């Protein structure tokens, strides 16, 4: 896709400078923390860009993987805060019962970090293998992933003593030994999130320019042809799906120390769709589109949601419709459009197969 790698690479470099040095210098603590939260969604969005934008898999339930990372992290931080006692919220519901078995290993920092990485890989691996080998795709795949997010959110809501239920897990004092209230440590947590986002961008950049990236697009646009060429599309999709799940999990894990609370509402159907909305707005198949779209939606929610509490969702919905109708490749395709218009008669690029697929998907 990108003929000149240095353009993308310097773009990532510029983004890194903005996030890691400019933002901490110019933003107040509150907005820096908010930016950290948007970065968590952006990390998940980068993964969605890979799976949906490049791989054509409409992953409507990334909240599931976001939750795996988030709850693994939240359980560890809750136990770190509680010390050797049973966490306070459990005492409220059943005063004398012991800590549930599955919480016990999350005392260990190493186990928690391993869980954040391995849990989504294993879950997405099994799920993806079962679905892609059976050639489940399109709307069926989208509905299935969405249903999983709803199911998980309901499960968490209804197990109040084990997971904190609808109230969620909150009130974390420490982050792997660091006092979370300390502004220096909050800056550190922000920088870790921002750095992880840059790393994720570098990873997908590497993917996009590799042969795997070509194969992924080929699978998206003409799965049968890829099969006839001797590749198994299921394996190609599986890799992209697992990587996107891993990114969602990392985003979820960092959401917890940044925001200080995780509830089922952040992982359910609405939250999962909001993640998709950001990706679509930004431009799902581009490198920066998903991340910038997620950050823009997050910002809109914080600031426009403050000014017009009732109106914000309508604004988002309207923007979404406008983009889908007039800018199917998202807001990040605007500059390229302008350039094409400004230059006198450039040779028309061959019509990309994506256009047809896109329309097909929008209609269905």
């Amino acid at each position, binding site marked *: 896709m990108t003929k000149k790698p240095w353009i993308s690479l310097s773009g990532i470099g510029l983004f890194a400078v903005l996030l890691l040095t400019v933002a901490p210098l110019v933003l107040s603590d509150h907005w820096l923390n908010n930016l950290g939260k948007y970065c968590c969604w952006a990390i998940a969005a980068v993964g969605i860009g890979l799976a949906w934008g490049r791989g054509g898999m409409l992953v409507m339930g990334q909240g599931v993987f976001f939750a795996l990372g988030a709850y693994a992290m939240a359980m560890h931080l809750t136990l770190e805060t509680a010390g050797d006692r049973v966490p306070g919220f459990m005492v409220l519901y059943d005063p004398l019962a012991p800590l549930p078995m599955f919480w016990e290993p999350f005392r260990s920092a190493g186990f928690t970090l391993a869980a954040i990485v391995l849990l989504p890989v294993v879950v997405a691996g099994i799920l993806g293998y079962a679905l892609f080998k059976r050639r489940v795709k399109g709307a069926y795949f989208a509905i299935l992933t969405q249903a999983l997010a709803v199911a998980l959110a309901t499960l968490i809501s209804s197990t109040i003593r084990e997971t904190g239920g609808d109230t969620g897990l909150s009130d974390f004092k420490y982050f792997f030994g660091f006092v979370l209230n300390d502004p220096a440590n909050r800056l550190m947590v922000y920088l870790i999130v921002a750095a992880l986002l840059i790393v994720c961008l570098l990873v997908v950049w590497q993917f996009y320019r590799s042969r795997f990236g070509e194969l992924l697009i080929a699978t998206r646009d003409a799965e049968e042809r890829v099969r006839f060429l001797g590749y198994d599309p299921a394996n190609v999709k599986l890799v992209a799906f697992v990587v996107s799940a891993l990114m969602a999990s990392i985003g979820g894990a960092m959401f917890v120390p940044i925001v200080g609370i995780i509830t089922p*509402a952040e992982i359910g159907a609405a939250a999962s769709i909001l993640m998709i909305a950001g990706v679509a707005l930004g431009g799902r198949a581009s490198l920066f589109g998903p991340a910038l779209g997620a950050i823009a939606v997050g910002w809109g929610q914080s600031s426009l949601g403050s000014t017009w509490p009732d109106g914000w969702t309508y604004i988002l919905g309207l923007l979404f419709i406008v983009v889908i109708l007039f800018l199917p490749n998202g807001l990040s395709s605007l500059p390229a459009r302008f350039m094409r218009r400004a230059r006198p008669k450039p040779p028309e690029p061959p019509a990309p197969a994506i256009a047809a697929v896109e329309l097909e998907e929008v209609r269905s």
Partner: protein
Amino acid sequence: MSNTSKRMRALTATGAIVTVALVLAGCGARAGDDAAAAGSSAAASCVDTSGDTVKLGFLNSLTGGMAISEKTVSNVLHMAADEINADGGILGKKIEYVQEDGATDWPTFAEKTEKLLTQDCVAAIFGGWTSSSRKAVKPVVEKLNGLFFYPVQYEGLESSPNIYYTGATTNQQIIPAMDFLAAKGVKTLFLAGSDYVFPRTANAIIKLYAAKLGIKIVGEEYVPLDKDDWTSQVAKIAAAKPDFIFNTINGSSNVGFIKAYYDAGLTPAKTPIISVSIAEEEAPAMGHEVTGNFASWNYFQSLETDTNPEFIKSWKAYPNSSGVTSDPMEAAYISMYLYKALVEAAGSFDVDAVNAAAKAKPITFDAPEGKVTLDGENHHISKPGHIGRINADNQFDIVWASDKFIEPDPYLEGYDWFPADIRKQLTDAAG
């Protein structure tokens, strides 16, 4: 070849970024050195009262499932602020309020609390309804040393130097309700609640007290806050035939519960309900099917006190008012005046000065429910206990009243049936 070197470059760049991030990690406080943590976390307050105004924050869900209840609280807070402004303000400063939307989403409550305290620099925040929203706000106000005034009855077992609770704690609402049931000779009780902090905790306390009173709990059912279908749970209630139903359901889920109750052929005459979340505001939404059932509150519109008629009159005349007064909105009204009294006693808007004033001498306010007194140690207020019975006008006939104002006791220290080891676990976990 060139591909490999590029890959190397990308990896080096990645490594460099991660290293920078982790080097910066070295400077923050770590667990254990609490002195350092305390020093750096007590960020200087940015509250500016040098002009002739003081900024206050209102944090209510104006959207989402709780909006129907919380908009009323927001409205009455505006009314109280307008009244105080018309009367000269607090310490001669007019109240300037910043309204934020909690959107029935607990992380949003946390985010907006931080925004109000650090961006808008408000001197205090008023609002919240569900216990989940309060639990999201608590760590933030404690971290930033802000003030939060919470106006709704709740499950108790909490206190914070940064929160003032103007709704009832358990010994001012749940325990009076149980005393009323025991006095009525109730032998069997069924517990129905929404599935979140308040009903779960309230029911844990009800079960302990019921054992002491000799009331048998014949069943316990929960439905998530956002679900309305109670059919199968009510079928269990009908089968268990309890003397009374204790209802800790919150919000619009009550409508579904009452409908299922009626459809199952249950009646207030045979299987009455006592609720702790249905007030004047909610009763009309349930239709005449609730007539004859009971509710336990501290304030009812039908209360005859010196200040209540004036309060009802002001509220009915206020723009966008619902026309009826209820307990949570009255508690919100109290919270604004309590803050005024605290600041005037302290002579300052400073959080530590306000907290010191609360401890120095009893702060009182002539509320619509009667003269309430603040407990400076646990930040709750004394309240009268009342049981009302819903009449055909959706108002409550008072059928029981506590003989005096009940002192707040959030950790139930004055009740010997509440196990000391549980109290210790809870205070340890909170501390």
